[in-house]
């Protein structure tokens, strides 16, 4: 299946790339098999995600999942963000070939890891 226009747009114009110096929730996860890596840093205030930034290394779906994820979670409460699933992320991207679904799994895993680290 071809990559969607949303996918291509995020790949060419990544949103929220980088790190937050004042982050109070950080996670850095690596897919142990393919070594794709995603780092997420969040500023959480009063139970709400005020800002999200990401860094990613790996195949294009991993780069795009990071970008789309930060848009999806910005402004959400922790409880709302915890409800986010791999399917939600895949829908927001406009779908991915099944062999690339691991990229969405890594993104959700990194999100949950960051949310559980809120200081």
């Amino acid at each position: 299946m071809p990559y969607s226009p949303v996918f291509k747009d995020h790949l060419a114009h990544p949103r929220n790339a980088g790190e937050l110096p004042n982050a109070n929730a950080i996670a850095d996860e690596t897919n142990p098999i393919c070594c794709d890596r995603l780092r997420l840093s969040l500023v959480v205030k009063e139970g709400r995600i005020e800002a999200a930034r990401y860094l990613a290394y790996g195949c294009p779906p991993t780069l795009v999942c990071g970008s789309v994820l930060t848009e999806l979670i910005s402004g959400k409460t922790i409880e709302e963000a915890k409800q986010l699933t791999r399917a939600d992320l895949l829908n927001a991207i406009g779908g991915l070939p099944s062999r690339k679904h691991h990229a969405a799994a890594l993104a959700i895993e990194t999100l949950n890891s960051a949310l559980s680290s809120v200081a």
Partner: protein
Amino acid sequence: MPARRVYLDNSATTPVDPRVAAAMARAVVEVFGNASSVHGFGQQARAAVDRARREVAALIGARQNEIVFTSGGTEANNLAIRGLCEASAVHGRHIITSAIEHPSVSGVCAELEKRGWEVTRLPVYENGIVRVEDLLASLRPDTVLITIMLANNEIGTLQPTREIGSIVRERRATGQKHLSFHTDAVQATGRLPLNVDELGCDLLTMSGHKLYAPKGVGALYVRRGVRLHGQNVGGHQERERRAGTENVPGIVAFGEAAQLAREEIEQRSRHDRALRDRFEAAVRERITDVVMNGDRERRLGHLSNISFRFIEGEGLLINLDLEGVAVSTGSACSSGTLEPSPVIRALGVDDELARGSIRFSFGKENTEDDVDYAVEVLVRAVERLRALSPLTPVVVT
């Protein structure tokens, strides 16, 4: 669709030369006879195939009856290795190959290994070239085949085929009569002047679509006297070595492409090398943390393989593609498993470099403007991906 498209993947396939397409179109319409038929239509087709066979033979300094047309390089490699091994099994069951062969060679060797053959895979070193001393140390009395490519398809390094050919001749002269030498010359044919007698090979693989002919046609050179078991059986075509009605239009196209390659090889080589050198100079000047893979001198002139630190090849490839620049990478990430390029890994480099390698391959249709555009796009894409990468070192100012 991007505003501009630049094709820098000429090692994967080349655009069909309009002169080749015209010759093929004429053959499709006018030369429809079966080349095995006795009547005039058949004789016309036979004459067209024979003309093409002469041209393909001339490109590598062979005799025309030493050329077997196939459906492409993969079939020719299968025919060469399986065919030779099956015909020579009574004399020995040991094959020597290299660690950086194309899958159509390494796959056949692995298949034979499962059937009881012993396979020695010569390493390459940092420069991507096998060492003759390793070959000499691996030769055994029961070795019947050495199959080592002429030029590598990912990094373009030239293997010491002439030296190997000399060794094989010496061994044969001193009693090891059933030792043969096959070389996969798919990447080198039409790009380097080749002569099978100078190379000393017994079998040599070619593919039409790497030299501006269409896909679906290739050839195997089989030195006179070399015994091969045919792999396609059930017909007398190609001197019993490849049964099946000849693909006359494809063969005509290959013949035309071979003639043009022979006539234009010097000018094409100069052109491609100049573009490649322009590209590499610009990359070195404008992008930091790059590693140029493979020997700098002993390599094909049209190809550049570069690893970009801190980023992954597939991400870079798709970014370039979004702006119309077509390249390739030997690494592939699928179903959560990554297969870094076996060729780049064989150079002994770390995984990050193996994952970040990209092949840029130039051809006769490319221009200096293409190169300059590709460099601009590449510089932007590398910057963008490095800004995203957690591996990029943070510069403290």
